[in-house]
C-alpha cells in the first residue's frame, strides 16, 4: 500500500528564509501522527506545504498519491487558532454542512435532501448532537472543535490535517478530543496529522511523532524521538526530556524560535 503522505528531501522557504529543509517523511494510511516542535519552527508550514498552499523550494512531496493540492477534497483541514467570534451567527449544523457542499455553485435545491443524513451522522460521530443547532459563536472551545472536526470529516475525508486543535481546550476536553481522534483513526481508517504544542494528552494514542525543530524534520515512534539525545541533536542545544511519576513527558530547555514576523503560521 502506498503512503498517505510522503516527503523526500523537501524544503520550504518563506520570503527567502529557509524554514526547514531535508525533510524525509512517510505516514502510512490509518496512522495517528503528532507534529511537534517549538513555536515558529514550521509545524503549520508543514501542513500548508502538504496542502499545496505553500510551494516546496526543494525536494518532492506526495499526498494520497498525488501532488500537494491535487487531492484536497479528500483532506479535512483545520487551520490554527480557529475560534469563532462570539457574534458569529451561523449554526453548527450549517457549518458542518459547508464541509460537504460549501464549494458548490448554485442554490441548494429544497426538498429531497440526501446530504442532511450525512451531516447528522457525522455530528453524531463526534458527539455534537446536543449543541449542533446553536450558533457556533455561543459554543465553548471544545464544542466548536468537535463541530470543526465534523466539518473536516463530513465530505468523506481520508486524511485529516489538524493545526493545534487542542490548544484552546481545557485538559478534560483535550483528552476527550484526543480519544475521539484515535477512535476515528481506528474505526474509519483515517490518517491524522495533528500539530500539537503539548504531546502529553496524545501520547497514549499516537503511532508516530514528527518533530520539527532547528530547520529539520525528524520522525519516528514517540519513545525514540522524544528523548534527551535526539532532541539535543535536533536543536543543537542542550535539551532534556524528563518523565514525571505520572508518565508525562516534559521537555526542558526547548528554545522557541523568534522571527521578525512574529509567529510563522
Amino acid at each position: 500500500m502506498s503512503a498517505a503522505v510522503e516527503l523526500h528531501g523537501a524544503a520550504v522557504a518563506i520570503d527567502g528564509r529557509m524554514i526547514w529543509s531535508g525533510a524525509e517523511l512517510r505516514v502510512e494510511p490509518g496512522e495517528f501522527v503528532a507534529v511537534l516542535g517549538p513555536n515558529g519552527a514550521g509545524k503549520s508550514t508543514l501542513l500548508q506545504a502538504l496542502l499545496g498552499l505553500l510551494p516546496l523550494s526543494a525536494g518532492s512531496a506526495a499526498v494520497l498519491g498525488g501532488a500537494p493540492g491535487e487531492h484536497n477534497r479528500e483532506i479535512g483541514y483545520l487551520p490554527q487558532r480557529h475560534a469563532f467570534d462570539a457574534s458569529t451567527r451561523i449554526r453548527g449544523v450549517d457549518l458542518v454542512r459547508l464541509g460537504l457542499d460549501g464549494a458548490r455553485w448554485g442554490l441548494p435545491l429544497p426538498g429531497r435532501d440526501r446530504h442532511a443524513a450525512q451531516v447528522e451522522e457525522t455530528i453524531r460521530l463526534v458527539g455534537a448532537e446536543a449543541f449542533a443547532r446553536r450558533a457556533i459563536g455561543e459554543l465553548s472551545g471544545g464544542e466548536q472543535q468537535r463541530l470543526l472536526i465534523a466539518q473536516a470529516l463530513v465530505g468523506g475525508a481520508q486524511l485529516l490535517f489538524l493545526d493545534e486543535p487542542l490548544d484552546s481546550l481545557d485538559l478534560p476536553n483535550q483528552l476527550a478530543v484526543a480519544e475521539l481522534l484515535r477512535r476515528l483513526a481506528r474505526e474509519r481508517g483515517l490518517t491524522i496529522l495533528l500539530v500539537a504544542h503539548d504531546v502529553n494528552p496524545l501520547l497514549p494514542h499516537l503511532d508516530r511523532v514528527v518533530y520539527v525543530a532547528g530547520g529539520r524534520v525528524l520522525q519516528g515512534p514517540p519513545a525514540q524521538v522524544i528523548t534527551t539525545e535526539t532532541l539535543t541533536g535536533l536543536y543543537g542545544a542542550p535539551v532534556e526530556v524528563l518523565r514525571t511519576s505520572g508518565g508525562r513527558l516534559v521537555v526542558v530547555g526547548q528554545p522557541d524560535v523568534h522571527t521578525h514576523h512574529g509567529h510563522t503560521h
Partner: protein
Amino acid sequence: MLSYPFMQHAFEAGTIVAVLASVAGWFMVLRREVFAGHTLSVMSFPGAAGAALAGLPLAAGYFVFCAAGGLVIASSSRLRGARSFADESAVIGTVGAAGFALGFLFLSLYGGVLESLESLLFGSFLGITTAQVWTLAAVAAGALAFFAVAGRPLLFSSVDELVARTSGVPVRLLHVAFLVVLGLAVGATAQITGVLLVFALLVAPAAAAQRLTARVGLGLLLTLAFALAIAWLGLALAYTTNHSVGFFVSTLAFALYLLCLLTNSFATR
C-alpha cells in the same frame, strides 16, 4: 395613495431596493464588511455629483462610482492567510475620504449648490421615472443572480476563509465580486434613502435578523421581511406626513434593531 403614478414608482423602486439591500446586507453583516459598505455608500456622493457635472443620468454615476469603489477596496485589501498590500480598514477609510473630497470638487465645479443636494444626502421618493425603475430592476436582477450562483461558496468563505480556500473556493475572486455587487446594491439603495441613510436598509434589517436567528434561510427571509416593511412603511409615512423618506426609513430601522436587541437579550437570559 397608489393611484398616483409617482407613488407607484416610489413603491416599485422601494421594493426592488429593499430586496437587493437585504440580501447584500445579510452577507455584508456576516462578513463583517460593514465599514466597507459604509465607504461604498459615501462613494455615491461623488458619483451623483460627477454625473450631474457630466450631464449624465444620476443613476449611472451612482452605480459606476460605487462599483469602482468596491473594486478599489477589494483589490488592495487584506485576505487572511495571503500576502496583503495594506490593511483593509486603512484602505477603506482613505477611499472614503477621497470620495467625499471628489464629490465636493465635482459639486463646486458644477457651479454652486446642486438643486437636489438635500435629497441626494437624505433621500427622496419624488420624481422616480419608469426608466429609473427599470434600471434598478436590471441591476437588482444581475446582483441577485450573482447571489444565486455564488451564494454557498460566498457563505463558506464568509464564515471560514482559510478552510474554504483549501476546499477549492476562489475566495479572492469572491471577495472582489462581492464588494462590486455590494457597491451596486449601495448605489441602488442610495437613490431612494440618500447617501447618508443607506445603512437603514442595508445594515439594520440584516443585523436585526442575525440577532434573532442563526439559521441561514430563515435569517435571509427575516431580513427581506424587515427591509420590505421598513421601505413600505417609510414611504407611506413620508407620503402622509410630507417629511423626508430617509428620516422615516432610518427611524424605523433603528427601532427595529433596538427591539431585536432587547428581545434577544431577554431570550438568552
